[in-house]
């Protein structure tokens, strides 16, 4: 059975991974729109 400290470490790691995944997803979407803006408007 994992100790309370192990639980807390896992919880922190899960939260960190979730935040990182969200940020990476947002970055991909941002890059998509930057590409559209750069190519279609020739700015």
């Amino acid at each position, binding site marked *: 059975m994992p100790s309370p400290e192990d639980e807390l*470490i896992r919880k922190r790691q899960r939260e960190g991974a979730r935040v990182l995944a969200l940020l990476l997803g947002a970055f991909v979407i*941002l890059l998509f729109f930057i590409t559209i803006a750069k190519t279609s408007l020739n*700015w």
Partner: protein
Amino acid sequence: MPAMEMIPTAALPADWRDFLALTKPRVMSLVVFSGLCGLLAAPELPPFVLGFTAILCIALGAGACGALNQWYEAELDAKMRRTAKRPLPAGRMNRQSALHFGVGLGVFSVVLMGLAANWLAAILLAASILFYVLIYTVWLKPRTAQNIVIGGAAGAFPPLIGWVAATGRIELLPVLLFAIIFLWTPPHFWALSLFVRSDYAAAGIPMLPVVAGVENTRKQIFLYTLPMAAAAVAPWPLGLTGVAYGISAGVLSFAFLVLAGRVLANRTTDPREMGAEKHLFAYSVFYLFALFTALVVDRWIA
């Protein structure tokens, strides 16, 4: 750095909220605001997504500065009440994580700015980050009472970067906006350092009230307010803005001068009786927000 042993080492992986705290979100809000105003005051606007990305890059660059500043000053922060609860001095994060986070964020913001806006804006952003971290934090802050005067240049970059991100050019108005923030920084920080000077003294930071005394600092606050007010009003007579901005800048700067005059007239050395200094500090934040709002409103109604 032997003093590093004073800081407790984090046993757990850092919480994402602590990474957010490293970026000093409150300081970031003023940086983002001034950068946005620089962008919105420009004669031509980029497509929304590119303008948004440019402002995001300014915010990330400011976050990198905050993280690297806290990485370098962890043991100083541990000595000051105001900063002792930050993630590093409180032992909630490893120092190396803060360094990696700060460098990563800084490089990412510069590269993204170059790709999304233009490389002149990216160079200015890189220069502002390096200036804040190397010139201000590492070199000037622990050595000279003029740290705020020269270091203020780092915080003055955002409107210039915002303008250049939109236009690709450096012109007179954004340079004046740079000058306004540059000259605003000493009165703003010295007002704060007057009523928290015991903190700075305890940490051994040579802020002006610690080195030159309270009375001299009050005199310097007033003296710096004069060229700041002149720089704030200057865009109007130079024909760079309209009358709406000119009147707003005049009124706001006059109120700043009155409050700086009250600080000059104050004689107390007890921080609890420094109401004039606290008012000036609070007003100085409002002043910058109001002045830059007036600039954008003036540009958009013209």
